[in-house]
């Protein structure tokens, strides 16, 4: 495991994106292979912008993004081949069924059809979508749509999965399914990076947590390390998070 961690799944240096003001301001980030990494921060801290730049959905103004040693800005297609992205708002095709959607995704990633077929059937079964496999997604609940989107993100066996608030709006059972799916992937050596406002998820699932505020990484490490950085021991991640973020707030 430690040998694996010497390989960086994601390495971000000096990442910068300015809209009206700097949304991401010289961010450095390093996530090892097989790691479950949670990126936390208050609203507007730059979490989603960071992840969208990493996923190739947005062009940074400055900085570098390397995914498993591939320069994602110079060779985005190669980087995308081993990456998948899930957003908080599942964007899938209403007029396609889950099976058709997965076949489309598998085709985009150039998967072997036989492997994709088997993989899709397994994922639909696992995510309890099999009874709806041939129904069009237009009447699906948000939870079901999110599960379809997750199946699409997993079907092509990515090495790096990036998720932006994947559990928003899911019921307990659907959330558990998604969490189990992600943990299983990490156990298989896949790297997962997610943002979440549900601190309990980060606390229980993530091996390392990064706290971002005003576009900068203000703290990073295991929960224990974050406790030390915030100067509080035996407190919950919520307390640690609030302390760290409050330190960054300008004096009132």
């Amino acid at each position: 495991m430690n040998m694996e961690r010497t390989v960086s799944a994601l390495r971000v240096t000096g990442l910068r994106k300015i809209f009206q003001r700097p949304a991401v301001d010289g961010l450095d980030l390093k996530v090892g292979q097989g790691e479950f990494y949670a990126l936390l921060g208050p609203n507007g801290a730059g979490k989603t912008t960071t992840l969208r730049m990493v996923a190739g959905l947005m062009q940074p103004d400055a900085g570098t993004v390397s995914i498993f040693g591939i320069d994602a800005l110079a060779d985005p297609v190669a980087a995308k081949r081993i990456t998948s992205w899930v957003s908080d708002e599942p964007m899938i095709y209403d007029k396609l069924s889950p099976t058709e959607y997965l076949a489309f995704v598998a085709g985009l990633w150039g998967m072997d059809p036989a492997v994709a077929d088997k993989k899709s059937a397994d994922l639909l079964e696992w995510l309890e979508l099999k009874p709806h496999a041939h129904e069009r997604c237009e009447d699906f609940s948000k939870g079901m749509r999110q599960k379809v989107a997750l199946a699409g993100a997993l079907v092509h066996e990515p090495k790096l999965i990036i998720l932006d608030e994947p559990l928003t709006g899911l019921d307990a059972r659907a959330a558990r399914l998604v969490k189990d799916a992600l943990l299983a992937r990490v156990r298989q050596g896949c790297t997962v990076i997610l943002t979440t406002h549900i601190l309990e998820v980060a606390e229980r699932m993530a091996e390392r947590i990064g706290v971002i505020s005003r576009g900068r990484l203000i703290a990073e490490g295991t929960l224990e390390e974050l406790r030390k950085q915030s100067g509080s021991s035996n407190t919950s991640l919520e307390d640690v998070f609030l302390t760290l973020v409050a330190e960054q707030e300008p004096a009132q």
Partner: protein
Amino acid sequence: MTDATTAAATAATTAALTAPGSWLWFARHEGRLAWRDLRYLMTGGGRWRGRNVIITFIVLGLGLHLIAFGVVGRHAKMTLEVGTPGFTSITGSFLLIFFLLLSQALEQVTRLFYGRGDLDLFRSSPASLRRIFAIRVLAIAVSTTMMALVIALPAINVLALFGGPHWFTGLGIAVAAAAITTGIALTMASVLFDTLGPKRTRFASQVASAIVGSAFIIGIQAVAILSIGTLSPSTLFGSDLVLARMPDADSALWIPARALLGSGPDLVITVLAAAIVLIVPMTLLSGRLGGYAIATASVHHGGNRRAWSTRLFRTTSSRQLLQRKEWVLLFRDPWLASQTLMQLLYLIPAALLLWRFYGDSRGALIVLAPVLTMAAGQLGGGLAWLAVSGEDAPDLIATAPVSPRRHLVAKVEAVLIAVLAIFAPFLIGIFSRSWSMALIVATGILVAAFSSTLIQIWFRSQARRRYFRRRQTSSRIATFAEAFSSVAWASAAATAANESWFWIAPAIVAMLVLVGAYNIRPRTAS
């Protein structure tokens, strides 16, 4: 009664009328929403600049008045003495606009039941659904009136300026036409809903709206082509063929025409009839509209459906995959398909013309070149918007390991292939008469569709497919560029079909439109 008592009574009445949940309160709410929608339409979502809007209005108004002068100016001296020929011409022109209004009203009424928006809020509140729907039907009547006035006011002004103030009775006719069309649309929608149920009404109404909007003009053109060999409705209205079948000048059929020519009693009859046609269904049906809205919310579209292929997982290039996806999504969405393809109804006269002159000289086919080129430009623009801006899973496509250029090429190909497939029967028909003409028309179709597609790519702005109708307001520059380029290519095709080298001139104009559009494209889009 003392002054104080009167004032208190007035205040109480005013308070009751404007109290939350009252008619006026709802009307104010609807008015505010409508005003904001109108502002959005005028500014395209940008900043509201009063001066720019006023200048736009003045320029547009002048343009519309100039067009109106060209179309109706010579009829300004018409009086009630025109008799059956004049009444036929006026009534025919009135019906062209009437059916257009009816089409719009039907679509708006149907949207009442299917638009989710704030209906859930109203349904979950103790407010009267009957009242809110009645207000919304009135709002539709108002917006239809506005549309009627946009069409009719320039013509009425021109006629009044050159023929006398009696033409202002046309304003009453415009309002009456809006009221009648709203009443009929409400009745039609209700009948469709009761007959077909919530699942099919939306599509049926969409198709009915498109057919109603185009049937009269297409029917008139078809009759004109088949009987007197022309596309012009006005020539048909003045022909012996039609006049021989029309009633005498004192017939009740001509009441609206006589009202338009300044007859006061006929105007009163028309307006009263219009009020009845609107108020009766509104009173009888507004109580049921809430039920329709609830029924649409319970519609389940799901169920097992046939997949796009029996072999979903197969080796295929990303290009083919993206193309097939575009076609499947369009094919499976009847509403979108109807929105996109209904404009092809206007090709029916072209097809008839082709059929009518099939054995005749090449000259008769010349008219087809601009018609088909123009239609291809518009259709290409619509399909390109769906493929480029109306991508429902943009993140998936953007994170797929396929270069953006390949995505775009695949989508452009999907659009062009679809356009060519739709126009293929026409091309085959023309080819059998003249291969050179077929070549010109095919080139016109491809170039016009490609140009519209390029404009849509340059001005792409991510949106949900269901907002297809709003594509023309989200970027008016793109809409105008698309229209100008289609018109210019249609002119080039017409000139080339006439075997003149002057086709180069409109082609250069079309290229300049494209260069201009490229230069003013939003920098973030491409």
